């Protein structure tokens, strides 16, 4: 599909009542106490970044920035208070992992325990690449005509 027709389909989808309705809803974040809570814009930027990096453990696949669970609300309050108290990002992440474990972070830090998770994609890529390379080379040696 080329770009033009993709845009056409998208426009059509937006024009349809069902799709349009879904897109027209206000972003969920506005319903949450995410924006404009901290007086300092720098702290607000750090707050939003940290909140997106922390998992809401009730819902597990949402960050605390996206979740309207009560626990997520309380964890956001915790992050905000620690930022106002001048705590570093690391101190906040440590506070959370001390209580909830590494799972609370969406991107776990690279440690011997998590090395496999971080390394697996590269190992897979290398493995797949080697297989493709060998197959292609083998085929290129074959006679062109059957």
């Amino acid at each position, binding site marked *: 599909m080329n770009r033009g027709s993709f845009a056409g389909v998208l426009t059509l989808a937006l024009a349809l009542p069902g799709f349009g309705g879904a897109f027209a809803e206000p972003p969920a974040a506005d319903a949450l106490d995410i924006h404009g809570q901290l007086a300092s814009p720098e702290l607000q930027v750090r707050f939003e970044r940290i909140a997106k990096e922390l998992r809401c453990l009730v819902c597990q696949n949402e960050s605390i920035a996206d979740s309207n669970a009560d626990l997520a609300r309380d964890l956001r309050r915790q992050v905000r208070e620690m930022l106002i108290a001048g705590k570093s990002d690391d101190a906040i992440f440590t506070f959370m992992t001390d209580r*909830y*474990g590494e799972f609370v972070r969406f991107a776990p830090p690279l440690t011997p325990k998590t090395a496999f998770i971080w390394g697996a994609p590269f190992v897979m890529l290398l493995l797949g690449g080697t297989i493709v390379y060998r197959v292609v080379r083998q085929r290129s040696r074959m006679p062109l005509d059957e």
Partner: protein
Amino acid sequence: MWKFLLPFAAFVALVVLFAFGLNPKRDIHALPSPLIGKPAPEFALTDVLNPSAVVSNTSLKGQVYVVNVWGTWCAECRVEHPALLAIAEQHVVPVIGIDWSIDHGLGERDKAQQWLERLGNPYAQVAFDKEGRTVIDWGVYAAPETFLVDRQGNVIFKHISALTQEVWEKEFLPRIAAAGKGT
């Protein structure tokens, strides 16, 4: 030879992976607590039944006790309540309740008092976590959660979801016996 062995090895690896990953007995939502083996977080909160009294776990140092986090908004807590009553009746160790007020105090205390009056009170003491801070300190993410604390004041076990007589006998009692009990 390799052409046969390699796919076969991959197949075996997948079977092992799925046997672990798809095991219906494994609760994928239950997370290991980083608190196990660490000192139990201290708390000093007001008493659910008496707002002017303080419930704290510092005075419990030196004895084995159970901490049960619950709330009146939590359906599973209602499910486990009879089991808690039965456990309390055994008087093995004190069970300390922490009432998790997700509404930050708007009505939860009243509801909790009614709950305990109507259904019975299994707790030696019930703390009122008005702002949900103690609950965060304990790494609680879904009530009910039940912790076991040993004589040294370390958390030695955590059970997530409703407590049952079976879980109590299988998971708690042996650990309490090993911890030297309290009485």
